[in-house]
């Protein structure tokens, strides 16, 4: 087997990002605190350059490297671009927040870059090994990010929980993978699929492996009953980290489901659809009901994530191409909404006042009509009210399951979305109907102002013109 440098072309964005992350690490060590902004700038630059390189490298069809262990298809291209942009925006939102709290350190960005690298590898995984590699690179970086404010007890606790539960999930995944390897004798996902297809019927051992794999997937996504870490980590992490965890990794988790279940275990589709259905019903139920009882907005958004994961998985339950496109669309929209929501929380907080409690949003319309308006948009979008992107996200996944005659599940999902609307409405109520608290809204740097406005208005724009993104999603999975 011959090796030429040109076969590495599909990996260029990853290689570049890995090199840049190391560079930032080294450069940061030599910077004085006043010049710390260079680390930030370099990180942002590497994300932009990676994005451009990705743009040039990704073509129409799918590119393979390392004998198909690394896949750069349309889906990977779209998801990686999404991850890079989300990370870029998240880094911008975080800068003033970190500076003000005196934790503007290179670790945040270096760890962030490594996490992004992990996500990109995970997204492009063509074999079980590469998938695991990407997943662990992402997860380990995220654990460290949660703990990076060392003196914060709550953050350390969250990191500990996240790490222990995450490690168990990784263990389960490895266990499932090893059984799968034992049955098929291959690590390559395409090859596994071919072998299982040839076998005709689904082996009990394969089902056994699949149960473990689905448990791991459910953990990484945060689907009930593997959701326990989500509220704690969302609440306990510094908001800058919650912002990061809440957006881009969802795209990677989506890819993980596609690679493992849709591409690897297509023969057992019937079985994993049923398993996912259980996760969906539980996630919608628990996520929405538990969110009602929260008083901390980060924790509330954590539970709301659980319910959004339920919606997202609906497309997989449908099992059709349209369903897959719908799930992808939902994931992208959700990541955009989550980014805006946490960005707004950060914009309202300053040192000594984190604006984390729901009560901190009282009378925001009187304090800053602009930010209140943006938050209003994001909340209604999360609730799935029309004219916002969230409506179309829910529409497409529900369309997908109605198409496969799961009308009861569709009805259940929409009823749950009505219950969910309650706690989003409560945020709007606090901002608009209640008397303001005496807490000025801090000034924002220009880049944050522009990005935040653009991010929230994008939710409205995608609600009015969802066509282009829908087409992209369709093309990516079909």
């Amino acid at each position, binding site marked *: 087997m011959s090796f030429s440098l040109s076969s590495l072309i599909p990996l260029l964005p990853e290689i570049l990002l890995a090199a840049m992350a190391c560079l930032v690490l080294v450069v940061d060590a030599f910077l004085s605190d006043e010049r710390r902004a260079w680390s930030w700038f370099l990180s942002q630059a590497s994300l932009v350059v990676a994005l451009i390189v990705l743009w040039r490298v990704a073509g129409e069809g799918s590119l393979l490297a390392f004998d198909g262990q690394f896949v750069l298809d349309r889906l990977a291209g779209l998801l990686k671009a999404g991850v890079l942009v989300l990370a870029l925006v998240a880094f911008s939102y975080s800068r003033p927040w970190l500076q003000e709290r005196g934790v503007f350190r290179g670790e945040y960005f270096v760890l962030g870059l490594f996490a992004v690298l992990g996500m990109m590898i995970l997204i492009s995984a063509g074999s079980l090994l590469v998938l695991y590699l990407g997943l662990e690179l992402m997860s380990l970086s995220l654990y460290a990010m949660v703990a990076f404010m060392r003196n914060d007890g709550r953050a350390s606790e969250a990191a500990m929980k996240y790490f222990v539960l995450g490690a168990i999930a990784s263990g389960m995944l490895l266990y499932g993978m090893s059984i799968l390897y034992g049955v098929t004798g291959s690590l390559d996902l395409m090859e596994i699929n071919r072998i299982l297809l040839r076998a005709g019927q689904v082996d009990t051992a394969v089902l056994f492996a699949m149960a473990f794999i689905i448990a791991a997937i459910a953990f990484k996504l945060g689907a009930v009953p593997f959701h326990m870490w989500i509220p704690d980590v969302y609440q306990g992490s510094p908001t800058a980290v919650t912002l990061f965890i809440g957006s881009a990794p969802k795209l990677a988790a989506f890819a993980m489901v596609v690679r493992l279940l849709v591409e690897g275990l297509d023969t057992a589709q019937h079985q994993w659809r049923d398993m996912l259905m259980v996760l969906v019903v539980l996630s919608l139920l628990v996520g929405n009901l538990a969110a009602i009882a929260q008083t901390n907005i980060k924790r509330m958004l954590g539970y709301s994530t659980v319910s959004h994961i339920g919606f997202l998985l609906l497309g997989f339950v449908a099992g059709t191409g349209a369903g897959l496109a719908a799930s992808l669309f939902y994931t992208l929209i959700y990541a955009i909404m989550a980014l805006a929501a946490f960005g707004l929380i950060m914009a309202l907080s300053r040192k000594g006042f984190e604006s984390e409690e729901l009560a901190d949003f009282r009378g925001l*319309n009187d304090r800053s*009509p602009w930010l209140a308006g943006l938050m209003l948009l994001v909340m*209604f979008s999360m609730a799935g*009210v*029309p*004219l916002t992107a969230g*409506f*179309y996200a829910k*529409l*497409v996944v*529900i*369309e997908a399951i*109605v*198409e496969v005659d799961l*009308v009861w599940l*569709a*009805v259940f999902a*929409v*009823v749950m*979305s*009505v219950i969910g*609307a*309650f706690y989003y*409405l*409560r945020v*709007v*109520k606090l901002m*608009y*109907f209640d008397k303001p608290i005496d807490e000025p809204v801090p000034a924002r740097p220009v880049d944050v102002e522009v990005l935040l406005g653009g991010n929230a208005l994008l939710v409205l724009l995608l609600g009015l013109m*969802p*066509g282009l993104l*829908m*087409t992209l999603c*369709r093309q990516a999975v079909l």
Partner: protein
Amino acid sequence: MFADWPLLSLVIWTPIVGGVLVLLAGDRAPDGARRLALVVSLLTFLLSVPLWTEFDASTWRMQFEEFVPWVTTYNINYHLGVDGLSMPLILLTTFVTVLVVIAGWEVIQYRVAQYMAAFLIMEGIMVGVFAALDAMLFYIFFEAMLIPMYLVIGVWGGPRRVYASIKFFLYTFLGSVFMLVSLIWMYGQSGSFEILDLHKLPLGMTAQVLIFLSFLAAFAVKVPMWPVHTWLPDAHVEAPTGGSVILAAIMLKIGGYGFLRFSLPVTPDASAELTWLIVLMSLVAVVYIGFVALVQSDMKKLIAYSSIAHMGFVTLAFFIPFYILRNTGDTAGSTLAVQGGMVQMISHGFVSAALFLCVGVLYDRLHSREISTYGGVVNVMPVFAAFFVLFAMANTGLPGTSGFVGEFMVILASIKANFWIAFLAATTLIIGAAYTLWLVKRVVFGEVRSEKVAALDDLNGREFLILGLLALMVLAIGLWPAPLIHVMEVSIDHLIEHAMVSKL
């Protein structure tokens, strides 16, 4: 000259864009916001006038159509058009919004720009509901309407506004999501969200019944029909006057319109099969809710219950044709009933708006909605009293006012279906008269109740203008309803014809 204009789009987007401009103008210059809002609402009304003047009443086909592919992946189109059913309701919307803007002129002092913007944006969305010919577009407008109304009730409402606004939102949201699932299911069957395609879609009986029930969930909550009416009194009582006016005059009509646009033509067999249910719910609304109105001590609540009773009349009118046809085979009677229901909707739009504005006039002066606060108002506010009595008479259905026309037509038609249905429906004339006239007696007539009442000022020019305009409309429709019936006639004939053909 208007043939080439995208009139419907203009009527939808002028107020929405205008509303955003008002919002951007901000609360720093409240006077500017008020004037801009007035200009925008007047402009919108003027733009909607050609819909009436250029309307061709001789065809049931959609007019002023606009068609732009929107979300091609799901075949959702920006498809607008009006027929005789929707066109009068659009004019009602644009007309009432102008009045609401004027009515809020001095009364609203808190966040004026946001208040005006909410009503303008709501106007555009409501026109969109009436003009949409794509079911998904309809649904989007139908739901989006909740956002501004939620804010209007919650920000400018009374003491229990939080409870009322969230109840309003969740109630209506829950009703409409079932319709969403139905629409999506029908899209799966037909590959189209076009309402006119759904009219032609053949459906089995089970499917029809389920779809009918899902539509019922959406529209019955909106109308609102007994027993899902409980959000309305709360919303009305807590909403500011403008909010109550829009709720009663237009939002309730959207429920009635939905029955005509969706339930009857899409699921004709289920509608025929389940007519008993609707008739039962409507008669309960007419009789029972009428009695409930009688015992209210809060003026707004009384009018809110009276709205439910009147809308019960409307739903009765829309479904009684199935009985008329079964019993007599008389299509003319069926048409008469639906026409009566439509006239009743338009008339109720004016009358309820006027009554809520009248209560608003009193509330602005004494900040009380309790009937017992007032008494002998006629002695100090003669002009107001004259208007109030006129609108009260219209509410009871006195001949010569718009309220009479619709009720008379519906009762006349109902007799052909069943004497007892007509009899129970006709009790509205007695119960309605009882609660309305008793209200008038207690508020307007009698001795001057207190010093506060004695110090009341009569209507100012602004209030006189809005009540005068509404009085004109009420009398015009009451004395000469022919033009209104004329524009609707052909569309209603067609609707009845269509709904009488089985899809099975």
